[in-house]
């Protein structure tokens, strides 16, 4: 536990000491800010504000953000050779992966928390459906965690950050667009299974509309567990491959 915390702390500090992370944050906030302002402008005298607005947007763009946030995590250790010191430190290999994952998730949580400013504004100018918003935020928080775990997995495969980002982007796109399989696959059951395998399939029909289903929580937790497990195995394989 302690070692996870030490790794986590270093990685979080790393995020906050990196100009790239702030650039991502700036782009992220610009995008969410514009979306928020648009919705407010469209809503005036017409409709209540959209409770799941920001989470819905993130469900679309997390596929792009997650690789950027995670590509560095293990690829850099491989490139700089620090992985050799990590693997010879008296800590479990899993602590390294879990600590790094938690740091990425924490940074994502920070970005998400910044968007709560919009909710704060809304509370002051109208009466939004707060509980619905909380459900959607919970959903996107888990969704984001799952995408970050997948990103971390690919960061463990290579020492090339760009390649890691590219591979995780491809994988996340497949996981994201999987539900469009229904447009191609004529079989409803197959389409439903594919839909239920995708990241969006556990967000759009539940969290996004204000419903928290236990199965969706299990799905995202499962994706994280499997991705992290594979990442740990990949890191471990470094020992065998030399």
């Amino acid at each position: 536990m302690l070692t996870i915390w030490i790794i986590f702390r270093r990685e979080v500090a790393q995020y906050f000491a990196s100009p790239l992370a702030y650039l991502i944050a700036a782009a992220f906030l610009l995008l969410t800010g514009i979306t928020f302002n648009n919705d407010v402008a469209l809503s005036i005298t017409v409709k209540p504000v959209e409770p799941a607005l920001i989470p819905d947007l993130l469900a679309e763009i997390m596929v792009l953000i997650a690789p950027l946030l995670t590509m560095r995590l293990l690829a850099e250790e491989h490139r700089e050779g620090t992985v050799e010191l990590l693997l010879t430190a008296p800590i479990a290999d899993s602590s390294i992966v879990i600590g790094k994952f938690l740091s990425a998730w924490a940074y994502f949580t920070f970005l998400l928390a910044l968007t709560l400013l919009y909710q704060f504004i809304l509370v002051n100018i109208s009466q939004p459906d707060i509980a619905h918003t909380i459900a959607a935020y919970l959903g996107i928080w888990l969704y984001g965690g799952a995408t970050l775990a997948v990103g971390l997995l690919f960061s463990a495969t290579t020492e090339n950050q760009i390649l890691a980002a590219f591979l995780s982007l491809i994988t996340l796109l497949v996981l994201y667009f999987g539900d469009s399989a229904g447009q191609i696959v004529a079989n409803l059951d197959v389409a439903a299974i594919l839909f239920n395998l995708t990241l969006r399939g556990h967000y759009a029909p539940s969290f996004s509309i204000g419903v928290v289903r236990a199965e969706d929580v299990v799905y995202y937790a499962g994706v994280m567990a499997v991705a992290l497990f594979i990442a740990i195995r990949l890191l471990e394989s470094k020992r065998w491959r030399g």
Partner: protein
Amino acid sequence: MIVVKDLVRRYGTHTAVDRLSFTAQPGEIVGLLGPNGAGKTTTMRILTGFLPPTAGSVQVGGFDVQTDSLEVRRRVGYLPERVPVYPDMTVRGYVLFWARLRGVPRPAAAVEAVLKRFDLLDRQHKLVRSLSKGLRQRLGLAQALVHNPPVVILDEPTIGIDPGQVIEVREVVKSLRQEHTVLFSSHILSEVEQVCDRVVILHRGRMVAAGTPEVLGRQMKPGTHLYVALGGKAPAEIKKLLQKLDGVHTVREQGAGFVISSHGERDQRAAVTALSARHGLPLLELRPIELSLEDIFLTLLEKG
């Protein structure tokens, strides 16, 4: 402190370390000497718990590297060949990170001490990326020693830094003798001679010689190896004649002549001149040679 017995490590079909055995006692600096690809780094990686051995047993401080990997890792300080750094951390943060990760009881004090020891205190708030190569080497040493490990493993710590810094690093390594068991690898003979108490010479994964630098060095002293070029007869016959010389143990063909190696302190130059005169063979060339490491290995291999 370090007991290596019949260590084998294979990568696929390639055998990197082949039945290697040696020991290192507390207060001893043991040098691993060998050219690139001799298996030095692989041996060290196994000792640090980074790689598992294919066969054989390795114990550090009484713990087996395979069954008690974490205990072994706790007792080892390691500086890989290429100093691994996090460029965006500060010097202090970097060392502090490793101190914490290795469970140092009072990390801040330990870091302070080790930075002082390696003269990095005034740069402790600089980013690692701004350090020169020599400073990075010192930082690497600081990192390896911050948890005051009983065993210190340094993989070619003098490679790629300028001569002044090389001397500095050698001094540091020597200073470790009192408190640590040090395993030190190099491909420079003189360096090993200067620094180490005992030397293990590796070639293609095998140990070809071991002993104190004096014993090994004697075999390699100037004058005990001569380059001889004689004319007048077929090389094979000349080789036979040379081998008959008193004290000569190996004769190797090299270029147009031979390299002869002999035991003891005797200078064979007189004997060679006498041989030339006795058999009427024109002496084309006769000079003592400083053997390259490669030559020594070849010599040792032919001897062994």
